[in-house]
């Protein structure tokens, strides 16, 4: 065994063979560091603290060795060693040693945790379970009583960490029964589409009139009372008490005076004016101040007999809520809005000089509406408003009604509950005393559905036939269960014994009084909680190759997140599926189907760790444009961009840098790119010199590299290293003394982060991470371009951003553009390699280790021959023999 002692005896040249047998070896040059700084006390002779570093092998082969080295790393990191009273190593020297040791340990961990290419049988993740139920039964369900299966650091497909528990097994049955009974309800209904039109103004206008009348009455009654009180108070006999009351209320608002009306001889009681007491009168008066103006102003708007305005002040009467009727069947519904921009046309010119209210500016940034959930907790999206009163525009939104969902909505101007409009309103209130006028007019809302896709129809028809057969002749039940179980289990027939028992159970349910279809739901739900359905079992031949039917499942769960369709199963049955041409054809077919979104979205979300966007709330006072709808669209940009390059055979390199971006009107507004109208995402060419183009210029990527308030160069730099340069920094080490004196210093973000490099134990990683983060400092916390650091409390002269830097061990850059250029030209191969590893990890449901490097390199090489076209990676992966093997 090579130990420190041996190395001293025989310092030799070290040849690390990469692929054949990966090894974790601390480089020879680090021996000197140990010798100088550690061995005085920790050699075999002294063994201070019973620590003998001389016997510690430099080649880490066991978990125990790794632990011992981890301890060495920990004590140096935490500054415990070398002890304070001993000579200390130089900072650079120490940082190099720490970097080298932590990197070696990462390699060691990877070797030690390498599963040797064995994919553990995996259970359907919650996402896949929901998709599978949808494809099987034809309706969308919500299985959120099951654990989400999302991981902090790997994919939700990782078989070895997809556990199951007793609660979960019981919950599968619960969800299964609901899914079956609901889908049977839909299947056996006439499935008629229904339409409901809502004209908000019909309820709104009377409510406004009523509210207005109330407020006018309050105002009149209060004024009359006040006048009487004033009159009495002005009489000479009340002079003393009047002055006393004024003295008592000095510094308070003028209305407090009237609270003491009783003391004034002859003053009438507020009761006579319809208030229960003085507090009530004062309360209504103060409410009147803010309830009245919006109502008053609303009542002057034109066209309010044909539609409603989305006002911005949060007045309850003026809010717009609606529901998809609760008794409508579960399914896909379309909500169609007829809308117009208000702009200058709001008030007839004859009245403009009579109105005190500011005319709404023709501000196109305000012409977006939010469709939020009833209580506003989440959003269905933000949509652009086009059209005029004469010729309203149309917005169409698809929503899903799941069983037991009560689908309620709130309609409002973009960001009127947070962020933009809230801030605009506050400013307007402060400067003019009235809220912003409305920018959006809604003529009507129409809900139609359920829309049933062809595939859903097939599933529902199949279910309907099973029920019909059963209700005609219950002796059919055995066949029905068998057919259902075979389909549910992706083409694998169940055992006779299993079916026998299920038939007995069906009969028991019937005996207990359940109607045939209820008994059927209960019985089939057992199939949906059994392992044959829940696990993607693979029983390999001695050659470790999986069967064609298993291959069909691998392919479809990879590319559609759901079970294989009929054509895949047919190809599998005929034995042709594994032929490369056939695999390729099916891959292309699946990647063109709408179900491919069930691959694109979860893969990108997990690969790029977009979940971080939900780890914190964005400060929408500071970043008023980053409302929930914009956040949602910024995620969508990533999916749509990837899908675009997938569809157009574009190069993966476009994710690093590109002159084409894929956006819609909302993001164009955020990015200040003119000429993009409408809610659909489409490719847009960007001008030379635009920071947009490639992941680094995207709002979501920069926003996730923040804390919702300020940028985080560390988070961004580490992300770029991990995801783009395929050079992940070691995990953040524990027990490093934190630099806690900085907040007082009014430093710029760059200076603040730069402090990391003062101490060796921080510098070892941060000298790699931080420069890249600095290069992205021109993007603020929501990805909007800036030239000045907006962190609270920085000295003014430090605000100008300096994005220059140098990639550790690489090229220098003077700004973001050069950084992007360097990454896209010098690191494309690394990016492709990292992408392929993640793709394979997602597809195979296991960690990609050293064992797999051969496969990964072959896939990358094949893709490279096709200029790294995005689909080429996927085709090369699924046609690689590693994709067909159990190990």
């Amino acid at each position: 065994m090579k130990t420190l002692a041996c190395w001293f005896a025989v310092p030799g040249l070290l040849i690390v063979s990469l692929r054949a047998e990966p090894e974790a070896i601390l480089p020879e040059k680090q021996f000197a560091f140990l010798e100088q700084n550690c061995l005085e006390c920790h050699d075999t002779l002294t063994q201070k603290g019973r620590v003998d570093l001389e016997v510690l092998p430099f080649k880490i082969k066991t978990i125990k060795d790794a632990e011992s080295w981890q301890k060495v790393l920990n004590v140096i990191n935490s500054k415990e060693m070398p002890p304070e009273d001993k000579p200390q190593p130089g900072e650079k020297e120490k940082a190099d040693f720490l970097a080298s040791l932590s990197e070696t340990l990462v390699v060691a961990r990877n070797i030690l945790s390498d599963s040797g290419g064995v994919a553990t049988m995996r259970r359907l993740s919650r996402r896949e379970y929901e998709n599978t139920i949808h494809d099987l039964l034809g309706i969308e369900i919500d299985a959120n009583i099951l654990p989400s299966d999302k991981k902090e650091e790997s994919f939700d497909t990782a078989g070895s960490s997809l556990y199951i528990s007793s609660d979960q097994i019981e919950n599968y049955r619960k969800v299964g029964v609901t899914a079956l009974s609901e889908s049977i309800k839909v299947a056996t209904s006439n499935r008629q589409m229904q339409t409901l039109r809502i004209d908000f103004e019909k309820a709104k206008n009377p409510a406004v009139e009523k509210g207005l009348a109330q407020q006018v009455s309050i105002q009149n009654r209060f004024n009359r009372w006040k006048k009487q009180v004033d009159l009495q108070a002005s009489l000479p006999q009340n002079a003393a008490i009047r002055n006393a009351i004024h003295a008592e209320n000095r510094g308070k608002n003028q209305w407090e005076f009237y609270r003491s009306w009783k003391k004034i001889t002859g003053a009438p009681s507020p009761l006579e004016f319809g208030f229960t007491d003085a507090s009530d009168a004062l309360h209504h008066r103060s409410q009147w101040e803010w309830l009245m103006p919006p109502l008053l102003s609303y009542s002057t708007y034109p066209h309010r007999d044909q539609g409603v305005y989305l006002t911005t002040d949060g007045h309850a009467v003026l809010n717009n809520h609606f529901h998809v009727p609760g008794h409508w069947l579960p399914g896909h519904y379309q909500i169609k809005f007829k809308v117009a921009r208000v702009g200058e046309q709001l008030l007839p010119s004859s009245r403009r000089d009579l109105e005190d209210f500011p005319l709404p500016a023709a501000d196109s940034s305000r012409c977006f509406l939010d469709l939020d959930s009833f209580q506003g907790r989440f959003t269905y999206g933000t949509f652009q408003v086009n059209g005029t009163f004469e010729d309203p525009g149309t917005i169409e939104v698809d929503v899903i009604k799941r069983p037991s969902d009560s689908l309620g909505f709130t309609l409002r101007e973009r960001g009127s509950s947070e962020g933009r409009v809230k801030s605009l309103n506050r400013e307007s209130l402060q400067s003019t005393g009235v809220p912003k006028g409305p920018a959006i007019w809604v003529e009507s809302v129409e809900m139609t559905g359920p829309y049933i896709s062809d595939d859903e129809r097939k599933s529902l028809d199949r279910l309907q036939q099973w029920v019909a057969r059963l209700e005609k002749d219950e002796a059919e039940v055995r066949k029905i269960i068998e057919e259902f179980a075979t389909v549910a289990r992706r083409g694998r027939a169940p055992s006779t014994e299993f079916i026998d028992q299920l038939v007995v159970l069906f009969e028991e349910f019937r005996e207990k009084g359940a109607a045939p279809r209820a008994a059927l739901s209960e019985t089939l739900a057992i199939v949906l909680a059994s392992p044959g359905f829940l696990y993607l079992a693979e029983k390999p031949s001695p050659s470790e190759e999986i069967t064609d039917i298993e291959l069909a499942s691998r392919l479809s769960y990879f590319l559609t997140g759901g079970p294989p369709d009929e054509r895949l199963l047919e190809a599998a049955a005929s034995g042709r599926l594994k032929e490369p041409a056939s695999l390729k054809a099916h891959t292309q077919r699946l990647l063109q189907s709408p179900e491919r979104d069930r691959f694109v979205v979860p893969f990108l979300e997990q690969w790029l760790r977009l979940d971080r966007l939900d780890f914190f709330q964005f400060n929408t006072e500071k970043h008023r444009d980053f409302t929930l709808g914009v956040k949602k669209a910024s995620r969508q940009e990533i999916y749509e961009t990837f899908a675009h390059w997938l569809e157009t055979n574009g190069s993966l390199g476009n994710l690093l840098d590109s002159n084409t971006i894929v956006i819609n009107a909302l993001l164009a507004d955020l990015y200040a790119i003119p000429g993009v109208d409408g809610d659909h995402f489409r490719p847009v060419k960007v001008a030379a010199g635009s920071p947009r183009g490639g992941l680094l210029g995207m709002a979501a990527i920069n926003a996730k590299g923040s804390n919702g308030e300020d940028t985080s160069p560390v988070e961004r730099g580490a992300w770029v290293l991990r995801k783009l340069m395929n050079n992940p920094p070691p995990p953040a080490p524990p027990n490093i003394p934190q630099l806690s004196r900085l907040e007082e210093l009014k430093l710029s973000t760059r200076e603040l982060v730069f402090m990391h490099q003062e101490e060796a134990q921080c510098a070892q990683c941060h000298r790699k991470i931080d420069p890249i983060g600095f290069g992205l400092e021109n993007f603020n916390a929501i990805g909007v371009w800036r030239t000045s650091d907006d962190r609270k409390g920085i000295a003014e002269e430090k605000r100008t951003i300096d994005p220059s830097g140098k990639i550790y061990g690489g090229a220098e850059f003077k700004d973001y553009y050069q950084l992007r250029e360097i990454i896209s030209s010098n690191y494309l191969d690394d990016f492709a390699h990292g992408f392929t590893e993640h793709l394979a990890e997602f597809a195979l449901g296991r960690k990609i280790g050293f064992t797999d490097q051969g496969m990964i390199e072959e896939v990358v090489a094949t893709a490279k021959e096709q200029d790294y076209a995005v689909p080429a990676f996927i085709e090369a992966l699924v046609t690689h023999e590693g994709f067909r093997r159990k190990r």
Partner: protein
Amino acid sequence: MMFLGIGYGVTQETWLPSQEQVGSGYTFPEGLKALDRHRNDFSIVQNTTNKDSAEAHWGSTFWLTGANRFGAPGSSFHNTISVDQVAAAEWGPHTRFSSLQLNGSDKGIAGPGHGPGLSLAWDKGGKPVAGTDDPVDLFHRLFSAPSTPLDQRKALLAQERSILDTILTDAKDLQRGLTKTDVEKLDEYFDGIRDIETRLGKDESWMDRPRPKSPISEPQANVEGIEEIRLMYDLMVAALQTDSTRVLTYRQPIASVLNSLGTSVQPHDMSHYVPGPRMEVSKRRDQAHSELLAGLMDKLKAVKEADGSSLFDHTSLAFGSNLRAIHYLDNCTTLLAGGGASIRLGENIVLPKDTPLCDVWLTLLHGVGLPVERHGDSAGVVKQLQA
């Protein structure tokens, strides 16, 4: 036994007593202020660590287990049984619920702080044990009489058993031809089925015993943050008081606690506090936790037994995390209270540096009458802790 896990650690400057002031005469730290009225009834234990933990954002995953994440070759995640489940295995048969796992809901905001797991508890195979974040549901499981008559429930139980048999048939069928790893994976499913069977057996033997009358009223639904913790504490006391279970864990909310403090500082930023607003939030969180804990101790003390002793005297409570503060995994946050495990109370107990946290758990197990040989990476019982 009660284990209360807070995920991210505390504000060390204001929560930990000075290590110089050992014993009962320590200067009471600001972060514990609300606990002053109980100062003779809890101890702070210092210098413990789970030496194999290196995940600086995982306050709960290995807290009660002491496992090494990389302890199993060929796998990048490994865990072992948690201390609560050791006790549950012994005491479970005596109560309606072997153990109860509670979780903070933290609705809407995900984020690290606790690390992987479905609750604080891990079963004997090192697999996560599920927990509930719904106080209303928990209340009904504990105290609400089932609406169906006894004979019907018996019939239902019989049916549940034949359903399990059916599922088992399929599992056995699936098992044939699987590789060794996959057979092991499927064992989790078999374990799940066995757990349901055990529960059914228990349901059966407890069926004719009526549920205890609840000492508290039905909790409010959709409560978050500080109120949620208060509610869960009430439920935990009620569960112990009625001897519905003897083992409870609670993985507490983080994000929603900060929300209820009215701050926009995010959990991760709070945990990496530096002097200034972030540290203030961290301190306020500590104070909120101490107030809640003081309330919990009040309630435990208020429940009197026939002999004049209180529920508190028979309970062993541990509050803390695998993290101390910020990124520190040594000197894990540890507060012990209650008379159940015969621990020295009222002291600042400073152990030798890097004492395995599992030694503390082992000492608690011995204290409550479960003299197991070892737990996790324990080296032995800590004499210094014993009263």
